[in-house]
């Protein structure tokens, strides 16, 4: 019961809210059957569990559900960034395939699933549309023994939800500016006017998460 409420809260006021909530509650039933323990510790964000199912069980059902929600959004993002519909379609498929192959690298204490997919789609965009290499910082991963704590995962997912809500609450003009910076082709000089991003406490959470990760890496 509590779970469904959470999910409605998470999706916020969009036209698709009802369909999405119904879709999610079905997914949750599947998930309960397969992963009772996980459902108890991380009730909030079902996409995290979907990724876990892909990673540990190569679960095609979980992938299909994730695909149904995220692929149309990735395609929209790529088209806004300048890809033709045909190219966006192909790139979206590659982005979603990368998600499957890299599922083991996803760290839910440091990102939401949508953030992680955003970074894959952005890199695909740079590679396919701008024909550039994308230098990435050194990867920091939990060793084979260690894993992020469930409470850290929960907090990060909550922070991400709050950020999504805060973005929705922004005045239209400010939101447009941010969208332009992320989807358009503003040079870094033009981004100068960009202030007031609703980051809240997510930056300090991420800083904390990195410190914990560094400690286990020593």
């Amino acid at each position, binding site marked *: 019961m509590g779970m469904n409420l959470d999910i409605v809260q998470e999706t916020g006021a969009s036209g698709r809210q009802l369909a999405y909530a119904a879709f999610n509650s079905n997914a949750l039933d599947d998930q309960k059957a397969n992963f009772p323990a996980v459902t108890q510790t991380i009730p909030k964000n079902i996409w995290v569990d979907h990724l876990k199912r892909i990673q540990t069980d190569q679960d095609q059902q979980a992938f299909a559900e994730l*695909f149904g929600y995220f692929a149309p959004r*990735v395609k929209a993002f790529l088209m806004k960034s300048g890809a033709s519909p045909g190219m966006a379609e192909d790139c979206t498929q590659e982005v979603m*395939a990368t998600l*499957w192959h890299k599922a083991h690298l996803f760290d839910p204490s440091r990102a939401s699933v949508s953030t992680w997919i955003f970074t894959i789609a*952005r890199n695909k965009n740079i590679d396919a549309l701008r024909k550039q290499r*994308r230098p990435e910082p050194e990867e920091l991963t939990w060793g084979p023994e260690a894993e992020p704590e469930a409470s850290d995962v929960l907090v990060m997912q909550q922070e*991400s939800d709050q950020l999504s809500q805060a973005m929705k609450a922004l005045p239209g003009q400010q939101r447009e500016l941010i969208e332009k910076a992320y989807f358009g082709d503003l040079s870094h000089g033009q981004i100068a006017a960009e202030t007031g991003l609703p980051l809240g406490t997510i*930056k300090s959470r991420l800083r904390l998460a990195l410190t914990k990760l560094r400690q286990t890496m020593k």
Partner: protein
Amino acid sequence: MNTMNKITHHLSDQLLIGYSAGSLPEAFNLVVATHLSMCDECRAAAQSFDSIGGALLQAQPTENLGDAALAKTMALIAKGPKAAASKPVGSDVPDPLSAYIGGGLNDVKWRPIGLGVRQAVLKTSHAATARLLYIPSGAAVPDHGHRGTELTLVLQGAFRDETARFAAGDVEVADEELHHKPVAEIGHDCICLAATDAPLRFSAWIPRVAQSLFRL
């Protein structure tokens, strides 16, 4: 690679947003990625800007995919992952930079550019230039100004200019306003990774000749 000394000069939010949005030229991305490998403060900031991207993605109106999109994606998955670039082992520079050098600092093909200073241009897209600079202890990079933006990340040693002291991990973001003459500190040679999106402007005519020869 997480440098032990305290980093005091960080990347601007402007650059971190550009890196997150994917709108920086490749040479700038290289400096940013190398700095993020050394600085958890900026890495956390960069990841928080990625979270903005994630929130925007989630809020996108959807674009329908073709009927066979999921089946085609499953076929792509069945082919297996693309071969990842082999990771350079035991390099003395962070991974992203090591990939551009093709190894560590010993593998850099330095070219003298005068007054003991050496450089090596790294291959990136043409929108900006990335290069490594080797400034011997006590030597100076000729006095110069900038038309665009210049990022200078210290990898080893330290330099000073008119504004401050920059040590390993520190990055100086110089714009058109700044006219400076970086000098390597006595005691250690200084090695930097620098990127510019416009040619530098040197004050003296001799560096200008060198500039046309060496793509400064």
